[in-house]
């Protein structure tokens, strides 16, 4: 199945957006406004969906006219594109969306045609699957890990570099003892924040060195 590469699932959803009669703020604009305010770091709803690597939401207004002699044509609906790369299976992921990020899902998909809400989880899963389009070709450079194992690896890499630096020139017996403590501490310490910390949004000239 082209939606899957190793342990990674590539989900693509096209949800048609409601087009009302003229209103103050149309649904696509309301949706864009909401998305522009949504945190993109560890406070993101996707940070709660712990199996998400990368995800995006895009309002697609229309198809593209590439110039003559190609034919010019237009969509009759706008579509919300939801593209997500996560580890695990689709049903579990959608179920977690409906339960763990309920408010976010309601705020986004309330603008879409046929959205049944999150009260009935099975109905929500069915709705999302009706909107799903099959991936034709999916490439995942690293596809044998989970989000948790990848974040642990990144934490271990940084910690080991610092530890090695501090142990330079010490007697072997000291390093051996320190290593046992270091490794135990590493295994028990909390993981990296999913989505990064808000502090990364500070201006470049004011950022502390790593």
């Amino acid at each position, binding site marked *: 199945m082209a939606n899957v590469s190793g342990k990674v699932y590539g989900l693509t959803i096209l949800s048609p957006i409601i087009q009302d009669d003229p209103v103050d703020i149309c649904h696509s604009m309301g949706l*864009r406004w909401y998305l522009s305010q949504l945190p*993109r770091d560890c406070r993101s709803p996707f940070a709660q969906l712990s199996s998400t690597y990368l995800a995006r939401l895009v309002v697609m207004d229309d198809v593209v006219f590439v110039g003559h002699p190609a034919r010019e044509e237009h969509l009759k609906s706008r579509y919300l594109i939801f*593209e997500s790369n996560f580890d695990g299976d689709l049903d579990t992921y959608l179920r977690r969306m409906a339960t763990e990020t309920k408010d976010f899902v309601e705020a986004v998909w309330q603008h879409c*045609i046929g959205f049944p809400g999150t009260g009935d989880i099975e109905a929500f899963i069915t709705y999302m699957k009706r909107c799903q389009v099959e991936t034709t070709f999916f490439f995942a450079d*690293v596809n044998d890990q989970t989000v948790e194992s990848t974040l642990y690896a990144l934490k*271990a*890499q940084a910690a080991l570099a610092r530890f090695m630096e501090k142990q330079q020139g010490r007697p*072997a017996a000291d390093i051996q003892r320190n290593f046992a403590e270091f490794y135990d501490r590493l295994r028990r310490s909390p993981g990296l924040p999913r989505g990064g910390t808000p502090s990364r949004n500070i201006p470049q000239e004011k950022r502390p060195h790593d």
Partner: protein
Amino acid sequence: MTNINGKAYAMNAITPMKPWKTPILRLFFFILGVVRPLQKDLKNLSLIHFARWVSVGRNAFPRLSLEQPREELEYDYLLFFSNFNGTWNQYIDAFSDVLYTGLDAIWHWSEKYPGSRPVTDFKRYITLVQFDTDYYYNVYPQAATNDVKAAIRVEQALSSFARSSQGMTPEEFAKAWVELQAEVCPDLGSTGLAPEGT
């Protein structure tokens, strides 16, 4: 517009295709998926976390109610979504320099595709068919694809060392410690914030 989150760039593109060409493209993708060595250049380029092509038939756009107007399209559409590291120009240049054969085999079937070389026309075409991202989430904004791969190698070496070094004498440990440092040294570059303005 939020195409960038940390070190990752979210690219979206859509190109029209005559419907009779779609099965040919699907066959090409099928072969690309089955014959893994054909993905070697994509893998070696090592700047793409995840990428996908989605072929949507002219009658396959989801229609969820009778009130929703039925699409009346003559073209099928090829959607492309990529999560890559670096700047847009670096990415397109890398496509044109390294992956031109494969990319031309994919987009050759799209209307008015000019080919990936020379890169000027290629960039003009991508600019035309690209559309912006409204929300982009990245679980590890501080890490590029190469950082992830390096971290996994380091973690595997570290856990192996932690197991094998138990019960060693200080002399044996010292020798194994030096070997571990030599093994992981190339992969210990620190991750961090991406430069701004990319």
